[in-house]
């Protein structure tokens, strides 16, 4: 097959993946709304088909361009979308048995891909000399993996804040009325917080998650707030070292390509800001009085910073990464 045919396959598969993700997203939301198991099974199958199409699109793109398929924002977005959906299916559903967040993960991927195909599309082509280095395999891969985990963590954190708010309201209602409160999904674990021991004074490292049952194998439809909190922490604790590695690998590459390992280029600056915010989050989790909602807000700020690092820096801020459009 010619490069052109491969490029066409890649584009077609991209569209198939996008529509599959949209259908699966609607299905997952319907599943959360109507709680019918069959909806989950169908949606999961469609999402898996979307993953397959997405993967085909990425591989075909690599063949068409004759290089690694993550050399510009369009390709990066496609891979990011893939990893977020795979993460939702494997990590959230597979490991933690949480099915209610996959719809939101799909929503993130759908938005990412829609933006990519509408505004960031470029045809497959060779890399500019500045990107032509084996470090693109290391640095960019680490950045995508870290970003996808941060995205999953961000989604979990948003869900945590919503459920937590709901639980607080229910708890208030329960205190004021004599009748037992109608509890959503029966998933509240009010003891989760009370069982936390105080962190050691002066401890610079976070006390990791006080895991609760909810994050650890119960098959509830909507996990408890405490469970989501722990789950978000776990994901961020996995994302943070990967992001740290991505920044370090970027610095090594910068030393090879630009003659300095750090020059406060906007991309460097924003990846540092994102790193600092998540470092703050991990510390906040170890500090009494900062667990839960406050830590969650910090994590969301980190997620927002990640989006700036990816979109705003490449598209609107002039810097050395501007070519990666």
């Amino acid at each position, binding site marked *: 097959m010619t490069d052109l045919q491969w490029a066409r396959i890649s584009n077609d598969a991209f569209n198939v993946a996008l529509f599959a993700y949209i259908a699966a997203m609607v299905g997952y939301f319907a599943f959360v709304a109507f709680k019918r198991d069959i909806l989950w099974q169908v949606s999961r199958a469609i999402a898996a088909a979307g993953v397959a199409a997405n993967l085909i699109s990425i591989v075909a793109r690599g063949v068409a361009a004759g290089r690694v398929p993550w050399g510009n924002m369009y390709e990066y977005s496609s891979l990011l979308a893939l990893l977020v959906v795979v993460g939702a299916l494997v990590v959230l559903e597979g490991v933690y048995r949480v099915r209610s967040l996959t719809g939101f993960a799909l929503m993130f991927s759908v938005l990412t891909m829609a933006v990519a195909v509408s505004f960031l599309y470029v045809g497959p*082509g*060779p890399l*500019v*000399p*500045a990107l*032509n*280095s084996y*470090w693109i395999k290391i640095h960019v891969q680490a950045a995508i993996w870290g970003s996808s985990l941060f995205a999953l963590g961000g989604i979990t954190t948003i869900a945590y804040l919503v459920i937590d708010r709901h639980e607080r309201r229910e708890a208030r209602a329960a205190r004021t009325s004599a009748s037992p409160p109608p509890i959503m999904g029966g998933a509240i674990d009010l003891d989760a917080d009370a*069982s936390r*021991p105080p962190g*050691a004074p*002066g*401890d*610079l*490292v*976070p*006390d*990791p*998650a*006080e*895991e*609760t*049952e909810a994050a*650890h194998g119960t098959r509830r439809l909507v996990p408890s707030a405490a469970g989501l909190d722990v789950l978000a922490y776990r994901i961020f*604790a996995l994302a*943070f*070292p990967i992001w*740290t*590695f991505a920044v*370090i690998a970027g*610095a*090594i590459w910068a*030393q*090879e*390509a*630009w*003659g*300095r*390992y*750090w*020059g*406060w*280029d*906007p991309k460097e*600056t*924003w990846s*540092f*800001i994102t790193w*600092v*915010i998540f*470092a*703050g989050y*991990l*510390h906040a989790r170890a*500090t009494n009085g900062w667990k839960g909602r406050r830590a969650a807000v910090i994590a969301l700020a980190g997620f927002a910073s990640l989006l700036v690092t990816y979109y705003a*820096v490449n598209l609107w*801020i*002039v*810097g050395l990464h501007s070519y990666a459009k």
Partner: protein
Amino acid sequence: MRTALILLLLIAVASVAGSLLPQWPNSAQRVAQYRGDHPVWGSLFERAGLFDVFGSWWFVLLTTLLFVSLVACLVPRTRALWRALRTPPMQAREIDAFPSYAEVPIAAAPGAAIEVARRALRRHRYRVARDPSRPALAGEKGVAREIGSLVFHWAFILLLAGVIYGKGTGFSGLIAVVEGQTWVDAEANYDGTIRSGRFFDGFTGIGLHLREFGSDFLRSGQPMDFVSRVDLLDPSGSVIRSEDIRVNSPAKLEGLWIYQSSFGWAPVIEVVDRGEVVSSGPVVMDRDAAPDGVVEFAMPWRGIVKLPGAGEGGRDRAIELELWPDSRGLAALLEGGEPQAMLVAFDPLIRFTVWEGRLTDLATSRLDTTSLREVSSGIVGAGRTADLVDGRALAEGDRGSGSTISFPELRQYSVFLVSRDAGVSLVLAAAILILVGLLPALYSSRRKIWVRADPDGDGAVLRVGGLAMQRKPQFAEEFTRLVGDLASAAGERTPRQPEPDDREKARTP
């Protein structure tokens, strides 16, 4: 910890400003443009150091305070860890008060049972200490968490040391070398672009001879490759080795890193005045800035030849040169007004303008024409000669007025970034330690176990208590396994699982 976090957050906020406003060290030109566009805010930001956030005194102050607070935090923690590592795990009096607790009746006598338990815990990599006063022991595991955390945080001190050492003794500068010419690492040869550290101790005298510069573009104009084929020379001028310097593939020699940075055209120009050669050699040219919507390679290149005292009556003379490396670019512009990228040399030609009068400076990068008068202009193609008095192109052998300009050859020059940073390996080591420390700091957990054997009939009752600082559900599973292990090692009498009821009973005597 709180102080350090607040300082870190302030640094992040300052960084936001540094990424949104143009910065002097990254792009002086964009700062100047910003200041022109916003005169009031511009001067305000300038005064606040916001055009050089990362070099401003307050950023340095924030960083210094951050590191001071970090050290103040780390020293007592390190001391505490050191003490903890040298003291045996502490014995517990009330074992049944711990979150995990189990009782196992065993066949072995108390003393023997504790010895068996000690070995079993050692196999699980617990640090174990026996209670000297009774058949009991204490074990703990997971000190890697605190060690990792300390390694992670101390590594930042190492990082800072590497940065300061590297920047303090290092330098960087830009050099332009024309094909066929040799450059030597000496201060004068950096054309004022040097940024060096306070403790920079001089230049190496190493030489670089540019044999050839090559570039490769796609038809779309996308660059594919830039390569400088160079000979690296030792201070005496003999070739150490030949190398191809590309983007992403710098040459490294004696601590110097030499990077491909950019490139340009350098036509060889020979000026003859009244039959005498007054100037001869390559003229390094700069490309005009492209207006919006025009590809940069469509723009012509400019250079100036300044000849003090070479004009009529001893007046100064300057020749402005405008190079079109691909004459089809000029033709396209003149005919259709459509700019066309000039990526390779094709019938290159130079439009020149001759000025006479008084030169205010000898810099070849700009021409101040206030005291100059235009005397002629013309066009000279590659390999041709033109007359400086009337601008007319001259045929081979025609000397014209005797004052001529020739363009025998078009060469390219390559711009290299030359830098030295002896701190790189320290910084790299610090980065590796940061990662190495981070993993146990995030993923390992501290666990403690206490075992006591009380006599019970023929054998004993093994009481086991456990406590995890982190990852409690995993520890609950580990604890169950551990108790099973201890029980089978010590010869369990009647198998008993630790039930929640037992814990309740044990807790409320």
